[in-house]
């Protein structure tokens, strides 16, 4: 803009350029001012604490005493600690069952809601989404009662269906993870809604063209719907992986009420206990960084693999 103005003659251009430059500078200044809440917050609540917790992970810090540098001791302990090892095993075991459910169930529900043969779409959409709004704490207690081995509705129905000895979901080490997957079903609302919006954004001409070429519903789903909504699936996959690494409330509440089923010792619970019950804050910081690194690696793997399966229709 300033260069254009400069061709209009010497004296005028100097004046105009100065004025536009000050305007540009002024705009920049205003930009920084409006940006400042985040900039300050990022430094104070993200960058600095991250650096500090990295530092603390090399100390024996506990509340009330100054931290002493202990080198890699926490990190060595972390790899030797059987509790840490077990919590990793529990976290990954659950993640492997939950991850496909957390993607496939909302995908299925979104396909149902997107079907032109479904009557009352808006009602269905609201009701399938509703459990997502229920506070986790209510949801967990509702499921806990539903899954009660003796009096819960689920086991009553299973007995009616002829299963004489249905599992004691929350107390059995074998069944607690499937039970938590069931509880997790109430958390698929957001993924469902975003996938549905993705499906609604697919141009109908694509489907019409494919139908003309003789593609059936499954072919259309596989070769049009899935590629078109793959960016949304990627977004949900990343969020789910991150969420699973930080899984806390459900196992925390269940472990308080089921006399500590050993399979509820997720890595984030381990971290909370080390940091805020035993006050081993140096060790807990190491655990936090460990958790962060694992999550980051998994996210990068997902993002890297996405080059093969995510399709962006508009450039990039």
């Amino acid at each position: 803009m300033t260069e254009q103005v400069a061709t209009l003659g010497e004296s005028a251009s100097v004046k105009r350029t100065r004025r536009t430059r000050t305007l540009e500078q002024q705009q920049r200044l205003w930009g920084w001012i409006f940006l400042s809440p985040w900039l300050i917050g990022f430094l104070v609540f993200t960058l600095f604490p991250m650096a500090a917790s990295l530092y603390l992970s090399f100390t024996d810090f506990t509340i009330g005493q100054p931290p002493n540098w202990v080198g890699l001791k926490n990190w060595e302990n972390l790899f030797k600690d059987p509790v840490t090892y077990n919590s990793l095993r529990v976290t990954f075991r659950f993640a492997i069952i939950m991850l496909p459910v957390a993607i496939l169930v909302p995908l299925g529900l979104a396909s149902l809601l997107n079907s032109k043969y479904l009557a009352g779409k808006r009602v269905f959409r609201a009701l399938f989404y509703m459990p997502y709004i229920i506070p986790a704490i209510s949801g967990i207690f509702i499921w806990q009662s539903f899954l009660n081995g003796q009096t819960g509705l689920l086991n009553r129905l299973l007995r009616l269906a002829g299963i004489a000895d249905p599992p004691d979901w929350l107390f059995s080490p074998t069944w607690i993870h499937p039970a938590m997957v069931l509880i997790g079903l109430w958390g698929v609302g957001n993924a469902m809604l975003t996938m549905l919006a993705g499906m609604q954004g697919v141009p109908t001409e694509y489907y019409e063209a494919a139908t003309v070429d003789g593609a059936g519903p499954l072919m259309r789903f596989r070769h049009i719907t899935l590629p078109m909504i793959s960016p949304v699936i990627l977004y949900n996959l990343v969020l789910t992986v991150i969420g699973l690494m930080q899984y806390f409330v459900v196992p925390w509440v269940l472990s308080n009420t089921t006399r500590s089923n050993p399979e509820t010792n997720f890595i984030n619970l381990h971290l909370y206990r080390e940091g805020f019950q035993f006050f081993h804050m140096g060790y807990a910081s190491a655990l936090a960084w460990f958790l962060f690194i694992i999550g980051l690696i998994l996210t990068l793997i997902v993002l890297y693999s996405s080059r093969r399966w995510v399709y962006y229709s508009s450039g990039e």
Partner: protein
Amino acid sequence: MATQSSVINAPQFSRQLRRFGLTALVTLFGLILLIVYLLPFPNMVTVSLRDQAALAQTPDSTMLPVMPATYNYEGKDYPLYEVPTDEGVRQLALVKPGRRSSQFVDPAKPEAGIIEWEGNWRQLKEVEVLSPRWENFSEAWQKIDFPRLFRNTFAIAIGGVIGTLLSCISVAYAFARFPIPGKNILFVILIGTIILPQQVTLIPTYLFFSYLGWVGTWAPLIVPHFFANAYNVFLLRQYFLTLPKELDEAAMIDGAGPFRILTEVIIPQSWPAIVAVAIFHFVFAWNDFFMPLIYLLSKPELQPVSIGVQVFNFQYGPRPELVQATSLMAMVLPLIIFFLAQRFFMRGVVITGVEK
């Protein structure tokens, strides 16, 4: 004529029939799926209304909130039983139980007097009537002190909503409208914070708040929200980008500064996005468990609903009806807000999730 037109319409008719059939089939399937998906709700409702102390909690007992039926005979209540007699099974009131034979009264014909019945009354089935125990809710309400929990949650949530709106609107405005050097990189960093687990900043942040003397107050749950977060900034920025720049420019020519453009041009056009952010944060604050657990565990008088319900239900674990009643009461408000503001809410979810 009539036959001719019906012949012509036959293919169309069969197509419509097929469409109707498929619609019925898919909708029925959806309905069944929905019922299965929401099956924990009826379980919650019946448990919350039962008189758990009086009723057996065994796998074969009824789930419904029932009470044993009684019949008042000559000023006293007697329990009703299903009694097999010569005239088929009758509902009779047990007046005088005995080991070999018992005395009954027929509520339909009390004037007929005592009926002797041979057999062991203990093997008879009690008559049960539906009798929801609404007092469970008032008992839970008082025991857990819901008014206090609601007040606390509201204060935390409203404080956070104000903070998140002020900061996120400002930051989103910066990203949407101003020529900041390195803006794209900054935006990527902002979005990147989504994958950052809060645990990695948790301990130093806790120490910082503890140094300020804020542990055991609401401040750690409110103040950080005055510094913007990725989701809401993203949502608002996307919305601001859709607003035509001409209006800003017109206001600028009229002499409005950037702050006035924000308050008089941008904000009045952005209510759907702003309402969505406010609801998101409200629901988030209502739901948040981890942070109140860290900062308010030792302060029962300041705890929000999430922690209060958990602590209470841990204490009252053997009273499943109170546990279910509190869970129900804790979720009513977010649900009402959701159903009232559904449109804004879902639109907001879609913007953050799809338009990346």
